[in-house]
């Protein structure tokens, strides 16, 4: 969290993260280029670079897409999620190098402008065999650029979390476009069977991981029936102190936190990146998002000063050993006295 903008808010963990990631990436590029040159000494540097950066970007995209559901299934993956944007921006950089070298290699110094050529020279939509795979790659690169360019919190704050989140969910569109780009490009060349098999395997793994995470979340999306305007959440002892239970009510997820004998409810979506607040903890008296550590006061849904983030709050009551929720959201930052398990009242 911060009250101003910096290019990167460096911390010790972030440095370790980036150095490790950079080392692994360099290891991949060196291994790929080294083996390619050993096998094909006559290969040109441009071709090796196009292949090395293209494959690196595609592999990295798989890792990026896997981190989210993996962290939902096992919290120990959260450190990889924390700086996922660094991976995303790097992935765009790798894809851009791949695209730029391909543009120069395959489309420069011809009778057409390279940018026109990439759109018109590579096949047509009339036959599957001639599907213009480079156009799909170009479209994917455009989406990745938009995402990389708006990855900073400046854009997150100015676009608003829902818009930013929707924009960044386009990574799945980009992934689909890249799958087509690979399958109908290098996958159609002699020896491309391995590429097609690997791409199918990668897609299957990602779909499985996302389905597993979705299945887990689906359980929390079953809405309980309201009684006289109040939705039953759970028994007072069903929530561990400092943690929350997520309940679906009124079409959205609400995080009901317990702090000692008191209960408070806020929207489950963190204002930062819509992270699942209900999977967080109360740390130093603040609800703390598990994704990036954004914090909110339980009774107001507002970040402690000088921070300015706010989420919706909800009324709660305790009765008959049960916590009840009024599913009507209050404006972000509205103070609500916590429900007390001892008195049953706020």
């Amino acid at each position, binding site marked *: 969290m911060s009250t101003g903008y910096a290019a990167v808010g460096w911390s010790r963990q972030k440095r370790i993260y980036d150095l490790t990631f950079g080392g692994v990436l360099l290891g991949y590029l*060196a291994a790929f280029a080294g083996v390619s040159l050993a096998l094909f000494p*006559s290969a040109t540097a441009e071709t090796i670079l196009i292949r090395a950066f293209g494959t690196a970007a595609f592999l990295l995209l798989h890792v990026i897409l896997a981190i989210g559901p993996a962290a939902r299934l096992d919290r120990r993956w959260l450190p990889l999620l924390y700086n996922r944007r660094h991976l995303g921006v790097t992935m765009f950089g790798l894809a851009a190098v791949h695209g730029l070298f391909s543009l120069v290699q395959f489309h420069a110094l011809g009778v057409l402008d390279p940018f026109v050529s990439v759109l018109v020279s590579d096949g047509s939509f009339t036959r599957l065999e001639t599907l213009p795979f480079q156009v799909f790659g170009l479209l994917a690169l455009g989406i990745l650029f938009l995402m990389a360019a708006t990855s900073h919190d400046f854009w997150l704050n100015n676009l608003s979390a829902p818009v930013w989140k929707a924009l960044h969910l386009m990574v799945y569109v980009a992934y689909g476009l890249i799958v087509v780009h690979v399958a109908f490009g290098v996958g159609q*060349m002699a020896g491309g069977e391995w590429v097609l098999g690997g791409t199918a395997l990668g897609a299957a793994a990602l779909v499985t991981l996302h389905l597993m995470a979705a299945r887990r979340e689906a359980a929390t999306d079953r809405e309980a029936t309201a009684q006289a305007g109040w939705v039953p959440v759970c028994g007072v002892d069903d929530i561990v102190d400092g943690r929350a239970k997520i309940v679906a009510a009124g079409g959205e997820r609400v995080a009901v936190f317990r702090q000692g004998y008191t209960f408070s409810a806020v929207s489950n979506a963190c204002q930062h990146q819509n992270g699942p607040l209900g999977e967080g903890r109360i740390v130093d008296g603040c609800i703390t998002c598990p994704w990036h*550590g954004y914090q909110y006061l339980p009774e107001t849904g507002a970040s402690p000063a000088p921070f300015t983030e706010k989420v919706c709050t909800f009324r709660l009551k305790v009765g008959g050993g049960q916590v009840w929720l009024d599913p009507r959201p209050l404006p972000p930052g509205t103070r609500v006295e916590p429900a007390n398990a001892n008195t049953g009242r706020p």
Partner: protein
Amino acid sequence: MNDEFYIGYYPKAPAATARHVRRVVVALAISVVAAGVGLALVLPYLGGGIFEFGQVRDFQGVMRCDAATGPRLTDAEVDYLLVGPGKSGAIEMCGAAGQTVMLAGTLITRDGRRLIETAGPARVLASGLVSAALAGEVMDSSATPVSLGNLTLTGEIVDPKCYFGVMNPGEGRAHRACAILCLRGGITPVFVAKDRAGATAHLLITGPRGEPITEELLRWVGEGVAGRGEVVRTGRWLTWRLDPGTLHLAVNGGL
């Protein structure tokens, strides 16, 4: 159950989480490097051509020119196909047709075939620099076309500049757009015919009457195709007088 809670802006990660991340990172690092090696091994063949990039040499021979197949430089041993810089042909070399010339360029070679990417205009030599006997021998052995009959061939239409060495691979689906640009730029189309045993033959492509054709071929570039036409030997190159109307997709086939 892991009871730890990770906060990224804290100086250190909780112990069990840090242990897990270390294990994951080590596994990922090994997997990623292995993937780099594996992908380099399984990705499609990179081609066996050689392009002596940056090495401009002088070549000497007789300039021969055919309206359909473009300029070639011949000497007693080699019949060089000439291509221009970038994605262009070298048709301007035909201005020196029939003369003995010195030509600066970069060698492209694969499977015994040789091409030159020209690096400047051809300089016509005084007749004494290359013996008249040598020039005559070259002209005699290469000027008369010999028909080898009508043949149905299976293979791929390529641009010879990339296929014979500049790109590696200069063939197949991924190279299609580049090949189309090269052919549009005036580089003579070449058919890489393949038989069922994998043996290849290279043929310059013209129309049925020996006329130049390009546009009719473009939709078939970079794919496995078959077609029919008369094969003619001119010098050390074969020419396929292809009827473009006979072209069709082919999965398997042979000469």
